Structures are given as C-alpha cells and as structure tokens.
C-alpha cells in the first residue's frame, strides 16, 4: 500500500508513559533520528521526582516532548500535535496540553479496568466520546510487540518492555525518519545481551511495518531539513554542554580542572559527565556536602587549578559564606547553579529562575561577583567558557545560572572549531612585583582589570599569606584601617564593573518597535518565538536578552530608555525587573509566572500583543 505523503513545516510530538516505559529513551532516539535529517529541534523532558512512582499512577508519568521543523525554532513547542500515550495515566496527565485536532496514539492494551481506576476513570475515555475532538489511533502496542517477538528467545517481560521500540518504529515511519542510527544504538546498548538486540530491532521494525500496512495511518509526513548554517551538528542538553564547556575551558586554559560537587537534582549530571573525562586533567570530587565541595574547589584554585563547583539552589544557599571568602581572596572560581523551583526543597525536577537575587545579593557584606546565564542548551557550552574566562582573567568568583529547562532540554548544536574557542591561558605570578624588586605584593592590581596576581604555592620567593580578614591594599596584610576598608570595598565592586562584557544586542527587525522585551537565561526561546509570531502578524516588537547579569552591559540603560515600554518576563516574581528598575529608573513591567514550567510562546505572545496594542 502506498501512502499519501504530506509536507509539514513543524511538528511537536510528546511521548508519555509510565516511568518504567522508557519514554526518555524513546524520545532521545526519535530526536537523534530527527537530527540526522537536518531538522531544527528542541526537546523538553519531564519526569517525576520519585525514582519509580507506583506504576500506572499520575505521579509516575514520564514524558518527552520533541519539536522539529524545517526552519530554526526556539522552543520545544507549546502544544503537541501528536501524543503517544502508553497508558491511561499518560493520557490523563497530558490531555490538557493538547489542542483539539491533535493526534493521540494510545496503547489500548493498558486501558484495563484496573489501570483506568488507578487514575480515576470510571469509563474508558476511549469509549465515552470524550476524545471526539481528537484524532485517536488505538493501537495494541504491547500485544503487537509480544506477537512480533513470538519466535525470539526472550522472556515475556523483555518482550513487553520492547513496546517502546514498537512505538518508536511507528512514529519513525509516520514522520519518515531515518533509522540506521537507532539500529546502531540498540546494538551498542544491548551488546551484552544479543537476544535483546534482535528483539528490540524486531519490535522497531514491526512498528514501522505496522504504519506502512495498517489503514488507520493513511498519511505519512515529511518535514524538510532546516536551512541551518553548514557544519557538523549534534544534539545536546544543557548539562552535557556545560560539561563539555568545562573540558574546553581546561584545554583552552591549559589548566587542570578541579570540580568539587555534591549531588543534587538537576545538577548531578554535570558531575557524572565530567567524571568520565579525567584524561583532560579533570579531577572530580564528590564532597561530603556543598560547603566542602566549594571549599575544595577554592583550595584547588588557590593551587592553580580552574576550580568549579556545580549545584542547585539549596546548595548555593550553603555556599554563600565560602563565596564571600573567595571574594576576599580574589581567586578564580566558577559556581554553577542549575536552578530548580524553590523555596526550600521546592519541586526539584521543575524549572525556575528565582535564584538571581541570591546570586547577586546572597552573601554577607559587600561581596560582589560576576553573574552570567546561558539562554539555551547549546549556549551552555559558550556561557561556561565565558564564565571561566571572567574567573581566570579577573580572579573572581563567577556564578553561572542555568536552570532545569536548559539543563535537560536539548537542541542541535553546531560544533565549534576547537581553535576558534577563546584562548584562556593565564599567567601565574613568577617574580616579586614590589618596587624594590624583592617584595611580593599579593594585592597589587593590574591597572586595567584590577585583578591581583595569581601566585600559586610552589613559586619560590612569592611565599605569602592571605585570608578572609580585611587586607591592606597592595600588601594584603591584615588591616583594620577605616580608609583602607572603604577603599577595598569599593575596589572589589569596581573589579566586577571593570569586567568587559559585550553590549546587549537588540533584535528589532523593522526598527519600528516601541516595546522592548527584556529577558535573561532560559526564557530566550519562548520570548523569541512569541516575538516572531507577533511580527508575523504585523506587530513591531523588540527583543533583548541578557547573558551578563553582573556586570550589566554598558549600553543597557540607553537601550531601555529608547523604548516606550519595557516588559520583563521571568519565571520568578520579578528579580531582574527589580535590578533594572533600581539601576536605570525605568518603569519596566514585570511579567511573572512561577509554575515550574517554561513560558509557552503563546502566552507571551498574547501578553505582548496586549502591551503593543494598549501600551
């Protein structure tokens, strides 16, 4: 049977099932196949806080959304065009996000009385007409998989488990994905158990063939490759990009990296990834707590390593005293905060941007640090290199604010030339710098960066003592002199302001915009998508996005003042807005949602439309 082939410019698919159903893996594979095809992609995994919540329950639902298109896209999509629901819980948990008309592929085998009851369905939604507005495809995913594997030498359990590959095969057929990489992947993954390689490949193919043959799927879709800059790409999550960026920092600075970390969701994966790459001179230490983790990183930095610590909000709250010490010591240190929903333990697997205040202000005394935030998964790579650059050049702690959304989301990444990456080499102090030619002054500053020398132990003739007590200018001796303290406090502030950061760029294609949307961090995608949509509908709107939160770009004040209205969407209660208002006395309008989820482009579009129209 030859099926009709329809061209689409974009598709959003959500795979949803029980935590045990392998939805993250299925989504990952689909994404990989899609990437091979040259579509632009953006993904959003969403999994429960529990390791394995009880099977079949709402809290146990795990999902993975992938958005792919023949043009460059900015978000994982607001609303799925297709939902794959492996059980009633997955259907119930995700139905609310589906626009009418969307396709739903359900695994009917799981729609048993018992499973329906678990989530409070008294009648099956497949039968009560409640799905009438959708295009529902009931498929016996489990039974067909088991059937397809009848003559494979695997247990019933293993056969059932392969149903996610059946689903993947079906979707791969529907969207004409190339499947070679999946075959290779399965061969690698199950190398130790060849019978499973065969079974999973068979399940995949059965799914593919099912699409090809069944009448229920009359149409096949194609999404053309996106016009993307030439080069080699891979799909990457924010956490993986951070790990690679840290390794790149090691290579480009020619310094050993010391990562001190204590596991915490959603930052742990950076530790996991880095611990695999010791060959780059990367030492990872799982410390006894977050304070020890940053302490060890600071100790290593004192010894001449690039010291890094990775954590999430609760961990940063514990590190404040040590960050304050690092400010006094004026040593390079990178602190990565993968933000999650707070306060307190909050919602550890959900996203939020509410640690900006803490990053900027969360220490005793005047203890300024540099703060930087990546805007997307692949941007994490460049942002952490920039954080390393600032730390190393300016001898200061730098806080990088990622969040759960960029950390676990993914997108295609144009691989950079290693040689094109910034040169991060530093010079350690090697000789006395006093006027007399014999004294070493550990707090004598570079006139431009105001950075002090990095004189590491092992350097003969530069033996010196530093600490957290106030230090005299130049000599670094303990000083209680009032004027010196005032000077040092101002100098530490000036050191941060002296960091060269690029001007913020404004995207205002027609130059007619009177409204500027200002964002930072992971809201880049939804804000950008909303602006595009508005512009497509004939409105003018300007977008500016901050990578540097401290210091702020030099032109920011001017930029803000050149618009009638400034809107600042944030996944917090207005933390950047507060800073901007204080600094520039601009009546910026905060737009805040604190739901543990990224903004949807649609909600921003409608909010912005209102501002554009009504001022």
């Amino acid at each position, binding site marked *: 049977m030859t099926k009709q082939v329809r061209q689409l410019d974009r598709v959003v698919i959500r795979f949803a099932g029980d935590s045990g159903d392998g939805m993250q893996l299925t989504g990952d594979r689909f994404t990989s196949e899609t*990437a*091979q095809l*040259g579509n632009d992609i953006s993904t959003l995994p969403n999994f429960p806080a529990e390791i394995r919540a009880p099977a079949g329950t709402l809290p146990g639902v795990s999902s993975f959304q992938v958005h792919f298109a023949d043009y460059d896209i900015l978000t994982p999509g607001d609303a799925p065009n297709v939902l794959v629901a492996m059980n009633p819980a997955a259907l119930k948990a995700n139905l609310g996000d589906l626009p009418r008309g969307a396709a739903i592929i359900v695994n009917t085998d799981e729609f048993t009385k018992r499973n329906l009851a678990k989530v409070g369905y008294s009648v099956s939604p497949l039968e009560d007409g409640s799905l009438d507005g959708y295009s529902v495809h009931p498929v016996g995913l489990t039974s067909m998989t088991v059937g397809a594997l009848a003559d494979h030498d695997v247990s019933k359990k293993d056969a059932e488990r392969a149903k996610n590959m059946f689903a993947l095969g079906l979707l791969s057929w529907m969207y004409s994905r190339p499947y070679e*990489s999946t075959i290779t992947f399965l061969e690698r993954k199950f190398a130790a158990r060849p019978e499973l390689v065969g079974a999973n490949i068979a399940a995949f193919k059965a799914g593919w063939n099912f699409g090809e043959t069944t009448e229920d799927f009359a149409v096949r879709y194609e999404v053309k490759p996106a016009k993307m*800059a*030439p*080069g*080699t*790409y*891979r*799909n990457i999550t924010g956490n993986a990009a951070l790990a*690679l960026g840290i*390794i790149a920092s*090691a*290579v480009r600075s*020619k*310094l*050993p990296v*010391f990562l001190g970390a204590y596991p915490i969701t959603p930052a742990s994966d950076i530790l996991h990834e880095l611990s695999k*790459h*010791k*060959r*780059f*001179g*990367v*030492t990872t*230490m799982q*410390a*006894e707590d977050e*304070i*020890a983790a940053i*302490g*060890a990183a*600071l*100790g*290593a*930095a*004192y*010894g*001449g390593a690039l010291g890094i610590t990775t954590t999430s909000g609760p961990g940063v709250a514990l590190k404040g005293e*040590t960050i304050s010490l690092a400010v006094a*010591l004026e040593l390079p240190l990178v602190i990565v905060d993968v933000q999650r929903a707070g306060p307190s333990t909050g919602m550890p697997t959900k996203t939020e941007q509410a640690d900006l205040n803490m990053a900027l202000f969360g220490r005793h005394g005047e203890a300024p640090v540099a703060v930087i935030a990546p805007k997307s998964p692949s941007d994490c790579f460049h942002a952490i290199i920039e954080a390393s650059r600032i730390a190393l050049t300016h001898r200061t702690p730098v806080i990088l604010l990622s969040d759960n959304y960029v950390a676990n989301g993914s997108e295609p990444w144009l*691989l950079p030339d*290693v*040689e094109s990456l910034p040169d991060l080499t*530093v010079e350690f102090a*090697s000789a006395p710098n006093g006027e007399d030619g014999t004294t070493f002054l550990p707090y004598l500053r570079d006139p431009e960066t105001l950075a002090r020398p990095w004189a590491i*132990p*092992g350097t*003969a*003739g*530069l*033996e*010196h*003592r*530093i*600490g*957290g007590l106030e230090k005299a200018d130049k000599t670094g*001796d*303990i000083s209680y002199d009032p004027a010196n303290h005032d000077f040092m406090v101002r100098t530490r502030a000036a050191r941060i302001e002296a960091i060269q950061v690029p001007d913020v760029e404004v995207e205002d294609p027609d130059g007619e915009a009177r409204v500027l949307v200002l964002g930072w961090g992971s809201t880049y995608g939804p804000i950008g998508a909303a602006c595009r949509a508005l512009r497509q509908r004939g409105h003018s709107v300007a977008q500016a996005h901050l990578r540097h939160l401290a210091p702020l770009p030099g032109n920011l004040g001017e930029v803000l003042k050149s618009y009638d209205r400034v809107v600042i969407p944030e996944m917090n209660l207005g933390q950047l807005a507060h800073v901007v208002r204080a600094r520039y006395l601009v009546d910026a309008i905060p737009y805040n949602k604190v739901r543990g989820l990224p903004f949807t482009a649609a909600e921003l579009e409608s909010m912005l439309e209102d501002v554009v129209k009504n001022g």
Partner: protein
Amino acid sequence: MAGRDAPAAPVAVKLTMKDFKSDQEVRWCPGCGDYAILAAVQSFMPELGIPRERIVFVSGIGCSSRFPYYMNTYGLHSIHGRAPAIATGLSVSRPDLSVWVVTGDGDALSIGGNHLIHALRRNVNLKILLFNNRIYGLTKGQYSPTSELGKITKSTPVGSADSPFNPLSLALGAEATFVARTIDSDRKHLQSVLRAAAEHEGSAFVEIYQNCNIFNDGAFDELKDAGTRDDYLIRLEHGQPITFGKDGQFCVVHPPGGFGLEVRETASVSPDHIVVHDAGVAEPAYAFALSRLPGEDLRNTPIGVFRQVSRPSYDNLVHSQVEAAKAKATGTPEEQLAGLLTSGDTWTII
C-alpha cells in the same frame, strides 16, 4: 601540571628556623601556648628538607588559626571549620606540596567536625594539627566540644550540659590512619610527633594540648608541672613496654577478658603482662582503647603516636585515576577535545 611550569625538583636547601618566621608581628596573648607551638614548628620545619614555597599552612578561624600568618611559607587563613575541605582540594590537585592544617578544638570539632572526619576517612594527605585548649579563645571564652561536662563559661553560667568529644576516639572511629597527641610545653616531644606525622602518607591527625592562659588557664597543668607530669603522662614509644611515673612505677596492662587498658603498679605486674606499644596494629581497637585511658583528672594521659598504619591516600588514588586516563589518551588536548565534541550522533550540513 599542564599550563604552568612544572615546579622545579626539590632543591636540597639548608634552611633554618629563621627562614620560617614571617614578617608579621605575632599577636597572641602574652603567655599563650600557641607561641611555644609556633616556635616548635618553625624550628622543626628545616628538618623536612622541603623548600618553603612547597609548604602550605591552611587554617580556619580561631586564635590557633592565626598560625599561617606567622609562617614564612604559603598560607591560607580561611573560614571557620572549613580548612580540611579547602586543604583537601589543594592537596589533591597539588601532590607536590606539603599541606598542613592548623585548627582549634572549636574550629575542628564543632563547626568543622564533618570535614575533619571525612578528610580522615578518605586519608587525604594532610597533616592536621589541632590545638586543643578546651575553650573558644578568639570569641572570648565559651566552652568547646572538648570542654568538660559541667564547665562554667560565658555561655554556660551554670555549667555545660554537653559531654565532650574525645578527639582521638572520634578520629579513630572515623578511620584515621595516623593519630597522635602531644603538648605545647614539650618541644622535643612535639617535634618528634611532627616528624612522624610528616612522614605519614595520608591524614596525620595530631592533637596538641595547648594552654589558653586567658580563658582556660592551667587546663593541662598536671601534665606540665614538674611535680605531677611524670606521674600523669604516659609517653608512648613504639616497640616499648608502656611504663610511666617518676620511677617507672606505673604500667599499662590489658586485663584478660577485658577490652580496655588499665594502669597498674609496675611492681605488681609480671613484666610480660605490660603492654608493648605497637602503633602499627591494623585493628584500630587497640589505639581506641589507648584513647580511653585518661581520667577526667588527666591522669594516665598518653602522648605520642597512638596509631600509624598504612593505607593509600585519597590523593594517590585520585591522582592515579587521572594519570591512568591521561596515559591512555592520544593526540594533543585540542585534538582530543575535537574528538570528544564530535563523538556520539552527529550530522553534517554542507
């Protein structure tokens, strides 16, 4: 280490005590036991044969923690309780350095207790000197985790309700491989312990009884006064039967069936029942029993090296993992990085 000149091989330098005095004025109270420890350390340092620039003193906060300022080596006066953690990062990433931690009973055992026990279980290559004056000196006289139950201090006007730690028992419970005690006033003994500590691979935990003459004066007088010290102090010497007292009149025995150690009159005991000190017993129960000997009145206080056993240091294990990985790698770091970036599923657009 990549990116910096590999430190020159240790030169056989001939240094003197004076070389280890920094230009900073020493600011402890007149009469403080810290002076004696400082002098002992400064005059011991040349023995190490390590150039000054390879030596780092890391401390927390407290009177004792001012120590690094007075040593003409590298020094880091950090924050309260965190010195072991900071020193761990330094030591692990710089195996060429000799890293010493100076801490107080509050710094190490109150706020810093966790970092201390974790450094010990990991066996990080740190020489940890705990100045135990059984009081908070710098904050002017509150009780510490080694102060006696019932102690009256500024924060416990009717006596403390906390039973103290026995720092050596705690260290042994935390898997320490080197545990010793010495005393500020006995420079020779102090230096013999420093010597043993310096030679140990991994964490060397040294408790130093130190007099705070302002807030806890005389805490260890019985161990110092000519009239009592010989009868109170047990000087442990590896391989020697444990006897003490002015005339060797006391000895330590291990009563059959019992698990602890006890003190007896030497005359009443057959010589082969006297415990022969062996710091190298693998089983920590022996050193643990030794650590329980002293009474509240300081009688039967052993000093010297309680335990010294060998176990690879954390530094070594970590380092060899990194080195092994490096050895397997081929190509320049840039090439390796390029390889890593393009690993996994990639696609190319032309």
